[in-house]
């Protein structure tokens, strides 16, 4: 029995469309009416949403069947899917290793053929990382392309729902279904209406200028960097022009990401009070006592760690030092990316700086765990689209290449990634 799913189900479509007959796995932080949505947390182990997320409505209208809700790091907080209350998911490529995270169950379900396609969510790499570790394709859309209505929020200025699939074209087809403005999410943009991303997966790289993000290549494990560099050189042989691009701001991206994500988490997760849903803290003492007991019982260690660090970063005397500086860093990264797109059509790097770790290996030291996100978080901070595509293997383990595009440049990253397949 697969450990990719938290809940197996069979939610039938209510329409016909481009996903007719496709079996789709959905990350368990996306609300499904009548099917429990746990976020990988004890807090929501019994939570059954009374409504569908917008992306679920769109899946159902397009002919897809939802076959299950997939395992994930608790509330999306992790890079390995090991912080799930329901236990870890193993990597179908090597069962001693993690599938990546936080959308690890979605990537594993696609890699093992238990679903044709899957939805994940990407706050700091949570679609691209497991795509890279499991050898499948994953897309993090431009912020505002896909509705977040019905997504249980972790860090809402950073996250987007994104597709996982065995091929670039199939991932693009799924993105075409879920993209588009939604009056229930005021951050969605008109650029997502009537998209045609699937036709961009034509493998034509001739004449494309690829900016190689040297800071992110140099920071990678040499086995990962070697695979990446060999495949990128192939694209040059096929007519792409390569340029080396250095961005000084990227050295601070992980810091800025964690300050912002933890701060937003501390605010977003304040809703879990054990009264409207979740685990009750009982009725002894006052409201604050009950609230604090509910959260002790319902949250795992990583969630508590991030909520507390976020509370600290926003507290009196520290707000300017951490949160304001993180926002400066975010603006700096955006400006440097904008300048880079004056010189290049797409930017490229290894998706992950490391090969998939063994289960348990990266749990001891939270800071080292966070550093695995170095190559993926800059894109979320800059609101940009990015894709991870399988680039080959090192020591028998999958290596992913990441292409980053300008805002709403999904077609450019899809085309570049399809050239690597």
């Amino acid at each position, binding site marked *: 029995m697969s450990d990719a799913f938290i809940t197996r189900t069979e939610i039938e479509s209510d329409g016909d469309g481009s996903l007719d007959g496709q079996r789709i796995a959905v990350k368990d932080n996306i609300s499904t009416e009548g099917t429990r949505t746990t976020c990988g947390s004890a807090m929501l182990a*019994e*939570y*059954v949403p*009374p*409504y569908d997320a917008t992306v679920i409505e769109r899946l159902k209208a397009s002919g897809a069947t939802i076959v299950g809700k997939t395992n994930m790091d608790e509330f999306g907080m992790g890079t390995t899917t090991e912080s799930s209350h329901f236990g870890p998911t193993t990597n179908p490529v090597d069962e001693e290793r993690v599938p990546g995270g936080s959308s690890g169950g979605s990537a594993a379900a696609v890699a093992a053929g238990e679903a044709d396609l899957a939805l994940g969510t990407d706050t700091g790499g949570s679609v691209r990382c497991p795509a890279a570790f499991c050898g499948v394709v994953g897309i993090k859309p431009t912020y505002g392309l896909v509705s977040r209505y019905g997504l249980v929020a972790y860090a809402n200025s950073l996250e987007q729902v994104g597709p996982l699939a065995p091929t670039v074209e199939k991932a693009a087809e799924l993105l075409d279904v879920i993209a588009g403005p939604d*009056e229930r999410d*005021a951050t969605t943009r008109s650029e997502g209406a009537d998209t045609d991303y699937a036709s961009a997966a034509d493998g034509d790289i001739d004449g494309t200028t690829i900016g190689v993000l040297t800071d992110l290549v140099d920071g990678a494990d040499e086995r990962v960097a070697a695979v990446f560099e060999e495949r990128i050189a192939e694209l040059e042989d096929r007519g792409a022009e390569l340029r080396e691009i250095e961005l000084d*701001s990227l050295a*601070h991206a992980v*810091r*800025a990401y*964690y*300050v912002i994500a933890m701060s937003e988490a*501390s605010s977003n997760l*304040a809703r879990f*009070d*054990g*009264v*409207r*849903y*979740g*685990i*009750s*803290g*009982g*009725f002894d*003492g*006052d*409201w*604050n*006592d*009950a*609230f*604090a007991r509910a959260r*002790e019982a319902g*949250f795992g*260690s990583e969630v*508590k*760690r991030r*909520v*507390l*660090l976020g*509370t*600290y*970063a926003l*507290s009196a005397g520290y707000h300017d*030092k*951490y949160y304001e*500086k*993180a926002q*400066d*860093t975010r*603006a*700096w990264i*955006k*400006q440097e990316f904008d300048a880079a797109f004056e010189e290049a059509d797409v930017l490229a790097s290894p998706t992950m700086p490391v090969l998939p770790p063994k289960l348990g290996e990266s749990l001891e*030291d*939270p*800071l080292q765990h*966070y550093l695995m996100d170095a190559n993926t978080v800059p894109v979320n901070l800059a609101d940009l689209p990015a894709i991870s595509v399988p680039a080959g293997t090192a020591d028998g383990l999958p290596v992913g290449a990441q292409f980053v595009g300008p805002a709403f440049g999904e077609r450019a990253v899809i085309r570049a990634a399809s050239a690597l397949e």
Partner: protein
Amino acid sequence: MSDASVDPATVAHVADLARVDLDEDEAEAFATQFADVLDYFETLDEVPEVDSEPELVNVLRTDEARESLSQDEALRNAPEAEDGYFEGPPVG
């Protein structure tokens, strides 16, 4: 390099602000881990001040009654409910 050492009393204070009870082992582990993470955050100091003008627009809609969840649906996930209300601990 930094003065961001975290004593257990600070962890307890932040846990109180965040309304999360911690057991003793957890509080102790967090004190060490927080020192590492906050120490790592220190170099944000080196980031230059950046002038940015985010492209923000207000998205408004008219405030009118529309279809929403029924009372039963809204209460369905509540651990305790009574007479159509959420039931919570005593206030203050």
